[in-house]
């Protein structure tokens, strides 16, 4: 048990090592936890629902709306943003080869670059087609804003639930990265739905909800994803939980 001997000179007494071991093992048997197989099934169900609901909502709300856009423009914006969204999802949703998730620098880069790259791609492609960046007076961007938030809410909740209590290192950044990944996925759908390429519209209806998702996810999701004590202590009555 004691491969690495703890210092004892200036330490207050605690319980015996064997007793502590027995107590921890006993508590683990009294508190069932899902195995990998059970958890994978739950995750599949929750994520399946979280993805199907926004996709169905998207179809019900009109699906792909080409409008006055040339087909090539729709194809280019959709493919480019889908590729970016896939990259963002790999970084934001996956954990990589560590139980502690991606490094802080990766997550920060992902969070910062997601809105910039998606917006940049949309403008870069639209500017090459005449009349595709003109103002639509009746479309300031509120509908796109609402649609983005609506489509993103279920997947965001699903993915945050999937990572709950799992990040002891940088939970807020992880949650922000999840928010960015969900926002990027939503961007692709809203991009297919919205023919407007006017920059203020894009900023209000497309970029702002993405930033809002990142912010809210970091704020609320960070607390859910963070590792924290969940049960009262049983060995030291002085510790308040």
């Amino acid at each position: 048990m004691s491969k690495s001997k703890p210092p004892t000179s200036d330490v207050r007494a605690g319980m015996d090592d064997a007793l502590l071991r027995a107590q921890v093992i006993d508590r683990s048997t009294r508190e069932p936890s899902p195995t990998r197989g059970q958890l994978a099934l739950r995750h599949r169900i929750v994520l399946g629902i979280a993805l199907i609901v926004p996709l169905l909502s998207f179809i019900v709300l009109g699906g792909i709306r080409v409008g006055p856009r040339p087909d090539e423009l729709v194809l280019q914006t959709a493919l480019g943003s889908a590729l970016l969204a896939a990259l963002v999802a790999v970084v934001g949703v996956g954990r990589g080869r560590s139980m502690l998730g991606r490094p802080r620098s990766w997550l920060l880069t992902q969070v910062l670059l997601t809105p910039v790259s998606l917006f940049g791609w949309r403008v870069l492609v639209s500017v090459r087609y005449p009349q595709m960046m003109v103002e639509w007076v009746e479309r300031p961007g509120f509908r796109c804003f609402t649609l983005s938030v609506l489509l993103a809410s279920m997947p965001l909740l699903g993915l945050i639930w999937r990572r709950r209590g799992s990040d002891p290192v940088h939970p807020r950044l992880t949650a922000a990265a999840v928010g960015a990944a969900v926002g990027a996925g939503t961007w692709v759908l809203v991009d297919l739905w919205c023919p407007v390429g006017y920059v203020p519209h894009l900023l209000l209806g497309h970029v702002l909800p993405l930033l809002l998702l990142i912010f809210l996810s970091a704020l609320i999701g960070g607390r859910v994803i963070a590792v924290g004590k969940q049960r009262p202590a049983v060995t030291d009555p002085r510790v308040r939980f």
Partner: protein
Amino acid sequence: MAAIAQKFAQGFGASAAHQSERGSARALSRGDGELASAAMERYAQGDESAFASVYDSVAPRVHAYLIRQTRDRAVADDLLQQTLLQIHRKRGTYVAGLPVLPWAFAIARRLYIDECRRRKTDALWSARDVGEDDRRASALPDDEFATREAARLVEAELARMPGNQRVAFELLKVDGLSHQEAAQALGTTVNAVKLRAFRAYSAIRAVLGCPLGPSAST
């Protein structure tokens, strides 16, 4: 922290022996890591008896780390318990082959930080800590004075240095984690861990009056 300080106060002179010991500690660490990963994999798959093996391969080092941080064995016991139970609750998320020790250390560190934040608001607790520390200090024996004096210097230096340097130093030099594992546990890069540990090592050497040798960069 005093125990670490004493260890380093005694050990700084014997560089070659120190290097050799550290090499074997690293080898032991790797062995422990593989054992922990194998046990965790069995536990994630549903083998309930594997939790005892996970405990045996993880708990001693995490416990030692927590005792050093808290200097209160009862609190360390609680934090260890919470750490292992977090691993237990999240066993289904374990990915085969990934190192368990950095994960366990990171959870323990997070719980310890939360505990410190809670303690900061508890003035009564702080008052009792000060009283008990004073009592312990007055009860120290007179022998080994030189070692204790050096230990005191190291301890003071460890307490003075930035927390990130101290923790990096302890994870590498005391807990025997690799740079990669320590970087994962701290959520930073390997280079940042090396830099923090190097700064900590340099500061301790300076306070003990030892010249900066080649071992400092390892």
